[in-house]
């Protein structure tokens, strides 16, 4: 699940698709009207420039919250692992599109591209990823919307993969590009966390398309929208690459 956590508010009686469209329309209206919605009517009559300066304050507070969360993040603290009986079935699907639009990646044409501050940039096939040492985790996936679901994921420890490809782990960020045009990025401390996983299986089965085939990044220390699915490229960098939802206002660090 992933790219998860972030989508739209589900509305009873509406398909995911129309829910999403309503959310997009609402968002556009919201942007047009600035911050005039809501109970803070004192802000509603403000000029455009004042709305911009309010937005600037909110953005700056969000950067501040990135730093606060980086300071709170304990690289040795593990998210709780549950017994398999706690796994939620069916595990929720979530993305910025509806379930019938899930991208189906073809194994034969797939390769994982590496770039940036990485020494061995040869692309990886699905089979090569599956041939690496694997581990599993039964952890809680927490969505920014407020729901959570326990699942079981298996795959490659990301810190081991980064070491194997000679990534510069003193760099600040790892960025991800996905087959569904989603993109996001994470801090290096979280990339090196022992539970951060290049996920290849869900409940001991090959990762299904709706959960991110052929490979997603699973981090029980971050909210769902930080966990990209269908990853086709990753790069190590010192410039913050942002993210699909982050660039629209979700907090970049998104830690839990």
């Amino acid at each position, binding site marked *: 699940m992933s790219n998860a956590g972030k989508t739209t*508010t*589900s509305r*009873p009686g509406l398909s995911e698709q129309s829910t999403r469209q309503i*959310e997009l329309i*609402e*968002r556009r209206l*919201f*942007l047009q*009207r600035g*911050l005039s*919605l*809501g*109970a*803070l009517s004192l802000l509603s009559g403000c000029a455009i420039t004042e709305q911009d300066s309010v937005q600037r*304050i*909110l*953005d700056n*507070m*969000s950067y*501040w*919250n990135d730093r606060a*969360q980086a300071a*709170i*993040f*304990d690289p040795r*603290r593990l*998210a*709780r692992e549950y017994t398999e009986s706690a796994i939620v079935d069916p595990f929720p699907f979530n993305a910025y599109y509806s379930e019938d639009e899930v991208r189906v990646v073809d194994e034969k044409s797939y390769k994982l591209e590496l770039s940036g501050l990485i020494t061995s940039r040869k692309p990886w096939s699905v089979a090569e990823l599956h041939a690496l040492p694997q581990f599993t985790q039964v952890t*809680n996936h*927490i*969505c*920014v*919307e*407020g*729901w*959570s679901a326990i699942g079981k994921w298996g795959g490659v420890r990301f810190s081991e993969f980064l070491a194997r490809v000679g990534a510069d782990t003193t760099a600040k960020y790892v960025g991800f590009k996905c087959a569904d045009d989603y993109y996001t990025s994470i801090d290096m401390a979280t990339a090196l966390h022992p539970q951060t996983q290049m996920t290849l299986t869900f409940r001991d089965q090959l990762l299904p398309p709706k959960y991110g085939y052929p490979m997603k990044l699973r981090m*029980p*220390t971050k909210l769902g929208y930080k966990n990209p699915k269908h990853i086709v490229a990753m790069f190590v960098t010192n410039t913050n690459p942002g993210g699909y*939802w982050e660039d*629209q*206002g*979700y*907090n970049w660090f998104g*830690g*839990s």
Partner: protein
Amino acid sequence: MATLNASAGVDWIRIHPLVVRVTHWVNALAVLIMVTSGWRIYNASPIPIFGTWRFPNEITLGGWLGGALQWHFAAMWLFAINGLVYLVYGIVSGHFRRKMLPIRPVEVLHDVQEALRGRLAHDDLSVYNAAQRAAYVTLIIVLVVLVASGLAIWKPVQFQPLADLMGGFQGARIVHFVAMATMVAIVIVHIAMVAMVPRTFPTMFTGRARRIVAGRTT
């Protein structure tokens, strides 16, 4: 409660210290932002045991989930730091001991009954009646619970022991929601009481009230 001015035949007494006045109004603004943005965040995924009911979007702040989160996570610093200043001041200066204690259930019951009959016992503005004392202390405790459950929701992994106290992430959401609802209910009563005794309103700005002598205002 020193006498400030006895010259013009009017005795002014200081009833609200400056720190209390400033933190009170900063808190009122922070709470307004926290509550209205919190409602929008809630709407993104209502707590299942409460059904699918949502807050009307018109009375929420932020415009969409991401905007509401920005307001919530910005105002939380104002709310928490301001609250900490008020708490530390209240404890260290003896303000809480002087004005909030003692709380005797019999007195609280009596004053609540009087208030319901429209006879709020609040002649001497320098003293909170028992109903006020109980309401303020409950409110302060509820605000502490709001911060604690908020931290548990924000960082259920990093602050896992705190989240565990509330039954984990979903439990902390319920605690946070119930604390919010309790706070809103008390604040509504609080504002209604101020409307019933409007003389108290300016005192929260100026800090001063006329001294009562032998049951009448001089």
